[in-house]
């Protein structure tokens, strides 16, 4: 078998696997399975069990207040020659099942020499149980989601989830910018006015208003008195002799102001094909959380986001939750997502008003393996986007240094032609957090 036909055969096998696997993209049901399963004896404690006193966690807000101090400490550690200890971007789920909130907090871990039990596979593990049932009898079922969903690795979800995300993303962005020295954005295009207004006490109004402008009033009084001939010697003014007309009082009143902040629109594209199962999805999504946060910070919350998922077809989803939690299934057509972005931008005439960023996360598989459909769409996208960043989370078992997407993008020469506009970062799916942040730098740095 020649090399190319071998490649083709692998290709086909991959496609077939994705086709045959079936599955669907629904957002998993957060319903709890068998509650106590896998909960070990040390997870029980008196306060909760006897008195229903929940173990408290400091709120994210309280944590953020001391974040500056923490980051200083962390920087100091590096200067003292010790590794940094604070990590961010972890999403935790405090509270009871079903009522989780998404919060982003600085975290750390105390490292010790410990036994690692994870080398045993799930099927070799044993749990406790009681009640009826013959040996071998199935007594319950649990959805597989916990193992395959990014949801298990991070964000849980409940009421108010997406909102919570928003308010904390700003802080995360700040932390990322400060801690990891992510670059600040250059001020671009502050000229475009938006249809947004902020209200400020800027307009002057004579006679009445909300705030007396003393300086302007005095000037007005002086003017009136000059006209009246009430000031004999301009070099020696006696204010006590002033005559004050009601109209002389100048006030400031609330008025709408046009906002000239530059604004960003970010497209997040995620490959949710069957091959993205497991770690690669976790990686892509956590990186997107961080990029999102960084942009929220950079644009002082003035960021609009659009979320697009694709397998062989692309669709837009309304919120980050759906984006984050949708299950993987199906095949892969990268071009479908790019086409959709182009369509949206064109249809809504977005290029005029926004700085547009596109971030795409994939494992690098594409049925369109030489990029014939993808590259033209990408070129089109580059004509209006401020930055297109592609993250490839390469499967650990994949052989060879490059994935299809990486190969055809490199071959197209776009990376060299438009280094300011297009960035690509390929990492192994087992990359750690520092590597992830390194990746963000590659994607967003000037």
């Amino acid at each position: 078998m020649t090399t190319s036909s071998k490649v083709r055969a692998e290709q086909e096998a991959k496609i077939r696997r994705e086709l045959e696997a079936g599955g669907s993209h629904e957002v998993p049901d957060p319903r709890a399975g068998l509650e106590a399963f896998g909960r070990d004896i040390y997870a029980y404690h008196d306060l909760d069990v006897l008195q229903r006193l929940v173990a408290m966690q400091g709120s994210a807000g309280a944590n953020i207040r001391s974040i500056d101090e923490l980051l200083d400490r962390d920087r100091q550690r590096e200067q003292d020659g010790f590794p940094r200890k604070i990590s961010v971007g972890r999403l935790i789920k405090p509270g009871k099942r079903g009522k989780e909130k998404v919060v982003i907090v600085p975290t750390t871990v105390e490292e010790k020499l410990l036994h690692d039990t994870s080398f045993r596979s799930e099927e070799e593990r044993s749990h406790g149980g009681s009640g009826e049932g013959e040996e071998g009898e199935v007594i319950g079922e649990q959805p597989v989601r916990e193992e395959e969903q990014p949801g298990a690795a991070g964000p849980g979800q409940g009421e108010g989830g997406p909102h919570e995300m928003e308010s904390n993303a700003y802080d995360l962005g700040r932390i990322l910018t400060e801690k990891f020295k992510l670059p600040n954005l250059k001020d671009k295009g502050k000229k475009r006015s938006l249809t947004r207004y902020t209200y400020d006490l800027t307009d002057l109004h004579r006679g009445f208003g909300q705030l007396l402008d003393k300086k302007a009033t005095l000037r007005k009084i002086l003017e009136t008195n000059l006209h009246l001939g009430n000031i004999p010697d301009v070099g020696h003014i006696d204010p006590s002799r002033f005559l004050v007309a009601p109209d002389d009082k100048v006030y400031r009143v609330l008025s709408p102001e046009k906002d000239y902040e530059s604004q960003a629109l970010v497209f997040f594209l995620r490959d949710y094909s069957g091959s993205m199962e497991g770690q690669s999805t976790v990686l892509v999504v956590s990186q997107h959380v961080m990029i999102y946060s960084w942009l929220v910070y950079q644009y002082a919350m003035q960021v609009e986001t659009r979320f697009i998922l694709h397998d062989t077809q692309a669709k837009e989803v309304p919120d980050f939750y759906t984006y984050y939690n949708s299950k993987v299934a199906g095949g892969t057509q990268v071009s479908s997502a790019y086409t959709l972005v182009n369509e949206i931008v064109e249809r809504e005439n977005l290029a005029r008003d926004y700085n547009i960023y596109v971030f795409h996360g994939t494992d690098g598989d594409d049925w369109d393996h030489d990029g014939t459909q993808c590259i033209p769409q990408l070129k089109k996208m580059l004509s209006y986007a401020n930055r297109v960043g592609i993250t490839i989370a390469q499967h650990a078992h994949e052989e060879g240094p490059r994935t299809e997407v990486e190969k055809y993008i490199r071959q197209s020469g776009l990376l060299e032609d438009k280094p300011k506009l297009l960035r690509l970062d390929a990492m192994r799916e087992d990359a750690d957090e520092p590597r992830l942040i390194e990746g963000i730098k590659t994607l967003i740095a000037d």
Partner: protein
Amino acid sequence: MELINQHTKKIMEGCKQRAADAGLRFEKETLEYLVTNRDLLELTPKLMIPTLYDYWVHEVEVLKEKGRYELYPNNPYETVINTRPAISYYNDNNPDWMNVMIFYHVLAHIDFFQNNLYFRHTWDYDFTGQALSDKRMIAQLRSEKGRWVDYVIEFARSIDNLVGFHAELGRLSRAPETSRSRMLDYYFDRFLQTVRMVKTGEYIKEIERYNACRRESPELGEQAFFAEVFRKYPEFDSLYKKSLETKPASRQDLMQFILQHSEFLNKERNRWMKPVVEVVRKTTLFFQPQIRTKIMNEGWASYWHEQLFLKDDRICGHEVDFSRTHAGVTAMPRVGLNPYALGMRMFQYIADQGDTGRHTPEFRKLTDAWEREHYDRHTGGGRNLLFKVRENLNDFLFVNTFVDQDFVNRFRLFVAGRRLNPAKGVWEIYVKSRSAEDYRAMLLDGLYHPPCIEIDQPKTGNGNLCLVHRFEGKPLVREFIANTLLGIEYLWGKPVQLETSEIVRAGPAPGPAVLPGMQMSLSEERKQREMKWQRVRYTMQDRKLTREVL
């Protein structure tokens, strides 16, 4: 935080009286506080010890998923802490009947703290008082040395799970020195066992020969005995003399060893670090017995709050409320382990065993199923046996001794497993085994058990610190090794080596067929892969980690 009111305190005193009458033994004085959520916010990072030293990690969300319970030898959310007087915390809107139940639970915990021998080292002082003075000392040092105090705390904490808890207990309950001759001790304890490595039969023969010599002549018997020994083992005399010269090596844990032998810590300008390390060591030692008696402690408290509550005449009319709460605490989950439920049933089982005389060798020798089932000697020794168990066992011994097939059958326990059903795309939970052996193994496997890391003294001679991880079928968490060794190197001041076992990764696995929505291929592949172990040595030198395969 404020004390409970007089009304509630009076209820507590009534509980104490009844508990003491039932046979529980505890110190009279106790402190009960009402806590609000705000108090808990401050207390939980400090493990419910209000006076624990400050440390910045307490203020940060700590990631605990990985090895959460292995990392911390304590439960941060206890209602009662093992101090003198014992302090317990209450929600301020508990109804009286519920407080009665909780008081009994708390009193049983206090009884356990103050009588179980694994807590022996905490009996002679008040931990909160000690912690307060330590906290002040650390605050004082922090004002002088700044962040370096926190580094020392951090590095000391990184090895605090390796503390020699059992050695500490051993020191407290050492058998009194024998008045026998040291030559005799040496002969039987060391020479025969470690030098000659004789078989058991031969060993017993020697004991019999010694006893015979003594019977013949109480004064000269020993001499006669050794005359024979010298003839049989000509080398004995010189070996014995040599053994007198070498002092028996005392077993020190890593923290003690570093404290005593680290040149870095013993330099004049670094001496202030030693008390900090000692504070961390003391704190971890204090918490050690709690995690090692979790099932017993909670079982004991649940057993007694049930027994005592139902007999309490003051709360008539609240039986239904109690039953509901009690069942919530102590119901056996269909799958999963609940230490309250399991422990309580074990104590009930033990009481039965004692009452019927089934814990005796006579019963154990019985093989006839009918006889075993109907065995009852009406010995009534249940209560006695309970208190003995409470005094002398920890979770390991408790489970190992009393989880037998009768127990497993009586409470219909089983080991649950989880397997993938690829057709339905779900995990199936199924009954894996109903044998006591498997159930016991499952329980024991889940118990707190930090790795055993010893100091290789001969190799440590030239300044390097050589640590050896005793292999127990599990590797160490690899990501944590670098930073932990870095901390040890800092405290030791010289290179540190760690020998451990790791799984040999079979070459890159052939591309597994990844099916969306399931991990079948992965676990199957893992099952097929045979576990191969190898010894590796990590070396931390100048804050750089290297790894070599031995």
